[in-house]
């Protein structure tokens, strides 16, 4: 039993890490890895299916799909990583403070967070991005804002459960001020939860970014983004399905990778939480 369990976890973490590494390589080295210029249009060959010269086919402007997928990973990683970071830093800080201090401050912060959670995720993000103008930066901000209350809640519950613990009492006893306690004692212990949640969130951020680009609100043309590639190929689903299937599969694999990584981490850190 035990060996089997560890093997499964191990496999998940390994797979997830491989995906992450591949993505990072793709993003960083895209211009060198891409066989063609992702912007070069060969209109007369548009929508060609995968073939020898263009392994993933060509898009509606006759641009090489493989090159665009590779360069598109930059957008996904940038949005995924940055928005999660925003949520983590801002939301995490608010949550830790609210959880530790409690009382009126807690109430105020959490009520504000509730307000942000009132709307379904995508709609909130759509409104924010439309208000600020559709581009990469605002997509990051929009998705990041949606993450903030979720992180706040998570951090808060960690802080609440941790503040009763002995070592906090001990720290107080020797005269540590509130902020120090939060930063040096509560935070490191809450961190593991936050890290796991972050890894899982990247997957969600990918999906949100894809949905935004699909609706035309994400990164602006001609820069490639996996979601906008699906949107461009939508009208040709019948005649050139590769335009839609390939970017979708790539998104799915990336999200699966991050999900397995996050869950693997969760198992390692806290085996009780998901019994296998």
């Amino acid at each position, binding site marked *: 039993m035990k060996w089997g369990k560890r093997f499964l976890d191990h496999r998940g973490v390994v797979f997830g890490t491989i995906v992450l590494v591949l993505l990072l390589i793709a993003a960083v080295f895209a211009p060198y890895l891409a066989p063609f210029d992702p*912007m*070069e*249009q060969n*209109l*007369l060959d*548009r929508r060609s299916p995968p073939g020898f010269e263009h392994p993933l086919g060509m898009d*509606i*402007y006759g641009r090489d799909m493989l090159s665009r997928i590779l360069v598109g990973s930059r957008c996904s990683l940038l949005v995924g990583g940055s928005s999660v970071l925003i949520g983590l830093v801002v939301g995490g800080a608010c949550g830790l403070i609210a959880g530790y201090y409690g009382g009126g401050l807690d109430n105020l912060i959490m009520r504000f967070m509730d307000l942000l959670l009132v709307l379904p995720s995508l709609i909130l993000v759509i409104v924010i991005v439309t208000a600020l103008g559709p581009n990469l930066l605002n997509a990051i901000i929009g998705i990041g804002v949606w993450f903030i209350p979720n992180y706040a809640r998570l951090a808060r519950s960690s802080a609440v459960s941790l503040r009763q613990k002995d070592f906090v009492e001990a720290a107080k006893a020797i005269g540590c001020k509130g902020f120090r306690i939060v930063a040096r004692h509560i935070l490191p212990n809450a961190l593991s939860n936050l890290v796991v949640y972050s890894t899982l969130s990247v997957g969600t951020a990918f999906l949100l970014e894809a949905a935004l680009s699909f609706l*035309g609100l994400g990164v*602006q*043309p*001609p820069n490639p983004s996996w979601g906008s590639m699906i949107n461009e190929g*939508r*009208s*040709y*689903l*019948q*005649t050139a399905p590769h335009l839609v299937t390939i970017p979708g599969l790539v998104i799915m694999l990336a999200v699966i990778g991050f999900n397995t990584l996050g869950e693997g981490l969760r198992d390692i850190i806290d085996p009780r939480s998901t019994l296998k």
Partner: protein
Amino acid sequence: MSKRMFSVSLLILVVVLLGQVLGMAGGTLRVAKTSDAVSLDPHGAAAGPSQEVYLNIYETLTWIAADGTIEPWLATSWERIDDLTMRFYLRKNVKFHDGTDFNAAAVKFTIERAIDPDNPARVAGELGPIAGVDIVDNYRVDVTTSEPFSSVPLSAAHVISIGMVSPSAVEEYGDDYGRHPVGTGPFKFVEWIANERIVLERFPDYWGEPANLDKIVYKVIPDLQSQHFALERGEVDLLLNPEPARVLAYKSSPKFTVYETPGLRVMLFGCDMAEGPTADKAVRHAIAHAIDANLLCQAILEGTAVPANSFLASGYFGYKDVDLGGRYSYDPDKSKEILGTLGWKDRNGDGLVEDTAGQTLKITVYAPEGRYPKDRETAITIQYMLTKAGFDAKVLIEPWGTYIASLSKPQLDKGHEKYDLFLIGFATAPDATQFLDTLYHSKMIPQAGYGGCNWTYCENAQLDELLETARASFDQEERAELYGEAQELMADELPSIPYAVLEEIVVTTTAVKGYQIHPLDFYKGYFYPIAMEE
């Protein structure tokens, strides 16, 4: 009887007789609509989705034939009384769908309602300087203009703003009239289920031959792809806006009939003539050489448009072929040559040209999304074409609402990123006055508190004079010549770069007989002559 009415009646008679022989009679025409109508009151509707429906409900004084001649419709004849007055003689024994009579009072009511300065009809701007209507007697009206305007009969055909409405119905329904339209047309309104369907049925007391069809059902299917599937599976019979990508497939299929004709919409890139690199005529010429209009028509618009060779389309009165395609053939090397003479050369081998200080030649292409066929795709392709010619080009795409707001603001006041080329598809009534004056006359430059349509900021005294003289003249030959000169002038100035003329294309199943395509897009949805084969 007018020529048009005669030929249509004959057609209907033939179709009906054939129908009796072949078993056609009545039938229901199911049409796919991309978006639901906003209002079936010509007053409240600004765009295609509503207009394509009420075209079958309403009629107006005159009708524009496919070759541009103006024919009688609800008016049997007309004559010019003086420089500011045109008298129309109305058809007798015409009834509205609610049983009331069509007469001078209805004409006065409809037209003055549309031009009411406090609450104008949404598209009344296209009517020109019409000031009011005077009733002479029950079947004679005088339409007055505020300045000499030779195209009054043409404006009188503008069914999308002055489709004749029943005054009693408007009074009865008030604000809700948009959902209970009453006109004189061959079909009357039955029901409207928001976002699902609109149903019309034959009006038995129509003043002409009653229509063949029993019913018309408009189904709202927003997704073009779903519309295609619906057509394929026999859930609808007619598509008013088929996907460009499928047109070739429809043409080669025995199951469908494709109707096409060059239309009136000219797709062009306007150039900012006031500020920035495009203010220089030579730069505009270089840009024109960098654009491959043939490729755009073939590959992006999938053969549903033809390259533009002038600033107007052939369906406009006053059109002259100034061979833009030949003068500015696709030649990126020529572009680079022109830029070279201006001091822009590729000094560092990156494919883009720079000046002596190392700055690249930045051009921003601005385009809307979802408003014109393949607008977004065209802009993206143009950006690439410009880059290949050495320009450091960027593309900025915004939803139509934002786009039109930015265009309309006066230059200084924009608070918006500067753009140098903007994408527009312009179409007006088929007379050069409205098209050229609106886009290129210096009077129409957007100013604070007044939004005009001269978004290129074209200010050319010679052009202004040509346009003004032509507008005021009543001599058609003189006007044609003046407009020809204007187009020659513009061919050198290049205030905008037209690249295509869109075709009007409609696709039906082979069961649909009798449909007639028309260059004017607002006649596309006219289904009076149609009969369904069983």
